[in-house]
């Protein structure tokens, strides 16, 4: 229950405080968004699987954001930044789909 409230509090804080994202960080925001969604769905799935582990929740989110950001940064330096972002978004979105499929199987048995 408290973690679920945490989810809501996070969104509300982001909306209300409107922290300004520095310009150099802005290309990474979409990546972070998709990684965050992936972390949320992955956690939900693992709760249903009975495998949830808070350490992994935090570490997987942080490392996903970090790796995605590094890939995009590398792409920027090599002049293929937007293509790299596309690749990252595709992979993370596929993970979201896989997680949602597992959640669906758990909840709807279909």
């Amino acid at each position: 229950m408290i973690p679920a409230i945490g989810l809501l509090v996070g969104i509300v804080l982001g909306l209300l405080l409107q922290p300004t994202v520095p310009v150099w960080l802005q290309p990474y925001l979409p990546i972070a968004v998709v990684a965050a969604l992936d972390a949320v769905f992955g956690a939900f799935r693992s709760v249903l699987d009975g495998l949830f582990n808070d350490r992994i929740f935090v570490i997987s989110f942080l490392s996903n954001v970090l790796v995605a950001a590094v890939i995009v940064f590398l792409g920027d330096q090599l002049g293929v930044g937007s293509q790299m972002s596309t690749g990252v978004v595709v992979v993370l979105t596929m993970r979201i789909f896989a997680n949602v499929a597992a959640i669906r199987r758990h909840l709807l048995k279909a």
Partner: protein
Amino acid sequence: MRVDASLDALLADALASDYANTAPNQNSGRLRVFFIAGAATLVTLVLGMAIAQTRIQASENSLTRDALVERVTAADRRVQELEVSVLTAQNDLLNAEAATLAGTSLGEQARARLDRLRLATGQTEVTGDGVTVTIDDAPIDPLQGDETPPGKVIDRDLQMIVNGLWQAGATDIAINGRRLTPTSAIRAAGEAILVNYRPMSPPYVVSAIGSDADQLAGRFRENPAGLLLEELETQYGVIWELQTVGDITLPAASSTSKNSEDAP
């Protein structure tokens, strides 16, 4: 075969759950719950920031646009004010002229000549029977994409109509209430049609005064402009209408058309 099953098999390695091969938390202490809550807050904070960022961006964009629109309308108002002051000045000039020329026979002659010239150059308001040609873009085909649709009325169509009306015997013509003079220009600037360097928006109403409205309409239908309109309608779906109207009033040309050679 279940599609998502084959997808899962294909992606098994790359997309394996982060939680595979791990043990769940055994102890669920109070501290741990808050740790998870904090982590969850952090994760969704990113989402909230992204939403906020998008909104800020959107409001900044609309602010810029609003400021530009405000400036355009202010400039438009200024132009209107200036036009009014020009018209009053012209009126004063006419009165002064009439006062000066009255009385002498030479003055009367000059005045008759001036009146004739003013009529020919569109410097006075005229009223009479005539026709209106209304033309509008073809309805936009949603399948066409956002390229310029072929059924859009272009400057050349308006030029043809105006020339056709002159040819059919019109003595005075105005487009959307803008009087045409011998120095008027109908041109295109990007998507817009400019008449006397003022942008016009469809539907375009071309009003013409002639000595015989019915004859004017009949001749217009048969000359190249009328035939072009028929063609535009059948080929591109352009909407147009020719009407004879009694007693239309065309305004005097504004000063902007007199100085059209100097305009940018």
